């Protein structure tokens, strides 16, 4: 065996020590002592809702990074950082999502869970393993808040934005005959249909035809023909982005180009280009109006504007309203855990959420409930916004800001020449 001299050992040890000192930070950061809290999330990363899951995941990760960047947060004298664990439900919450729930809640023991679609599929699991659940997508009607008392909705519900679209059609675009084309198997579309009908009755607009196409329909020609047979002056599409845009495309391909097409999909220019195709998307979107939550792009809040720029720079796509709610989610969880004084006790965190204030540094523009609380009966609310399409710039611009008080439109602001200053 080759022997190593003591001198050489000394040199080696000294070099190693010097290297260790050089590589180590001069003073330990606060995060060095921090423990990690894992936030569990079940999102539709693939499948027909895949336009929604990935941006939500990315925005939530941005929020977590911003929290960890300043050293995390403190609960009971102990410092913590956050870590995100996302499981893909493949847009199939009934089977894949339920398995993911068991993994995160029963195996990984996450203190809180973030979910997106198909909340009703988890009802039995909520009862068996209750924990606070934050939903950042599912605004189906009837409300998912009825499913279980542990469910919180971190966005405005369907009645908060659908009636405003009908109001806009009637009072701004002067349309009075709406044809509704919906996705028959999608509860989101069914909820929109319900509120379009309620709003139409309230505002004196006539629903001239209602057509719902079956699951997996790819050729919408018969449904378009049935809807157009009653000579509508506007078309309302129910469903999410990947349901709405193919119908809008086939409407255009069928020669229907002069009627306003309204939906509640939260579509971004990036998604329109991808799903409809370039250069057709610019023509198809020209008469589209989309009513949902406010967009980060159109916010006046500097923090929200910064988020918008950061998101576009990092992911090369427009962030939708969902991304703001997703970005804010970790901030909500941090305040709830601090208020509860624990990062593990699910019931205490749940109780804290019920009365928690609107967290600082959030970007969604929450409208507080009585006493400055974030949640109005477990629903966090923001203003709603209608956006139009600017063909010159191939992008979107806000045309209408509003807040629904029942079926009464309040705080309304119609933007006359939205594309001009955008």
């Amino acid at each position, binding site marked *: 065996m080759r022997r190593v001299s003591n001198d050489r050992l000394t040199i080696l040890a000294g070099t190693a020590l010097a290297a260790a000192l050089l590589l180590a930070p001069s003073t330990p950061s606060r995060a060095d002592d921090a423990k990690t809290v894992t936030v569990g999330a079940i999102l539709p990363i*693939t499948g027909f809702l895949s336009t929604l899951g990935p941006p939500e995941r990315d925005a939530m990760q941005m929020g977590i990074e911003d929290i960890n960047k300043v050293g995390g947060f403190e609960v009971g004298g102990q410092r913590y950082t956050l870590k995100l664990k996302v499981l893909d439900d493949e847009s199939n919450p009934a089977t894949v999502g339920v398995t993911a729930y068991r993994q995160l809640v029963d195996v990984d023991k996450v203190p809180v869970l973030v979910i997106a679609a198909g909340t009703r599929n988890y009802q039995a699991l909520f009862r068996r393993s209750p924990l606070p659940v934050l939903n950042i997508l599912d605004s189906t009607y009837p409300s998912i808040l009825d499913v279980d008392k542990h469910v919180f909705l971190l966005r405005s519900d369907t009645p908060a934005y659908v009636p405003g679209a009908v109001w806009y059609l009637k009072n701004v675009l002067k349309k009075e005959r709406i044809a509704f084309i919906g996705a028959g198997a999608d509860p989101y579309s069914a909820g929109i249909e319900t509120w379009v009908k309620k709003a139409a009755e309230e505002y004196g607009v006539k629903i001239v035809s209602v057509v719902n*196409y079956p699951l*997996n329909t*790819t050729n919408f020609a018969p449904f378009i023909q049935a809807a157009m047979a009653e000579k509508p002056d506007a078309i309302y599409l129910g469903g999410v982005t990947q349901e709405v845009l*193919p119908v809008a495309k086939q409407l255009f*391909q069928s*020669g229907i180009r002069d009627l306003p097409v309204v939906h509640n999909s939260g579509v971004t220019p990036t998604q329109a280009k991808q799903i409809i195709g370039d250069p057709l998307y610019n023509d198809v979107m020209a008469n589209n109006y989309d009513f949902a939550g406010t967009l980060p792009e159109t916010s006046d809040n500097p923090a929200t504007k910064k988020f918008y720029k950061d998101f576009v720079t990092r992911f090369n796509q427009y962030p939708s309203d969902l991304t703001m709610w997703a970005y804010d989610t970790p901030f909500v969880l941090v305040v709830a855990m601090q208020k509860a004084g624990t990062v593990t006790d699910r019931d205490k965190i749940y109780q804290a959420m019920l009365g928690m204030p609107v967290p600082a540094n959030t970007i969604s523009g929450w409208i507080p409930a009585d006493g400055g609380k974030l949640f109005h009966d477990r629903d966090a609310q923001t203003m709603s916004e209608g956006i139009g399409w600017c063909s010159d710039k191939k992008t979107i611009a806000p045309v209408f800001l509003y807040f629904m008080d029942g079926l009464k439109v309040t705080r309304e602001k119609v933007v006359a020449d939205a594309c001009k200053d955008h």
Partner: protein
Amino acid sequence: MLIQAAVNGVVLGSLFALLAVGLTLTYGVMEVPNFAQAGVITLSAYAMLWLNQTAACPFWIAALGGLVVGGVVSVLTERIAYRFVRTRPLAAPVVALGLLLILDNTALILFGGDHVSLSPPYAGDVIYVGSATVPAVGVALIGTTAVALLALWLFLQRTKTGRAIRAVSQNAEAAAILGIRLERQYIVSFFISGILAGLVAFAYGPMYAVYPYMADAILLNAFVVVVLGGLGNVAGAAVCGLLLGLLESFGAIYVSAAYQNLFGFAVLLLMIVLRPAGLFTNRSRRVA
């Protein structure tokens, strides 16, 4: 409304016919219910998309490339899987479903789950037929189907290889005794079936979107057509494809659009009870 419904029906029927002919061709020679055809369509569509958008090839070059990919993938399914179950008819459907899962998930892994548009230069054009409108993509679908069916008919009737395929489909053992190379006919049949799958991708992709499961749902309609036309009967598949398209279109307008898919399956049930061999079956002459 009548003309528009008829036009819609012909567009839909052309799609069913194009898809069903590819299925019935492989069923005729090998008696395999080729569910994997949907996966071949998907991969062919993604090949067109990749060539057009990533490799920046002109659309028509990309379409040709996609057709070749469809043919090659289809032959691979025969070489890698189907040839081992020729003598085991009960295993064939299971193998076919397994292949479909493999092909769909290959597309998912390679290209992701997003819906992406395949955009030919005529994607936004409209053609007016009296009071009815036909999207240019629909006209392309009708034209593609007409040309493909005519070419296939000429191939099967007028060429030596076509006649050999028909012989194999009628009686493989007798064809082999007469010196026809069975393996070659199987490969050629699957290649043609793959080219037809590529044509479906070319014509159907621009109507909706390209995604990993894009053809799974319409494949069921195509199987209805295959059964209605008589298993292995190319002409029967073409005629029944058009009939089913018209039936679904008129049913959607005059009964209820919500039950559009139901009409086809209702007719299928009636056929199974009243004429189980199909509308155009002639047991002595398949693939013709």
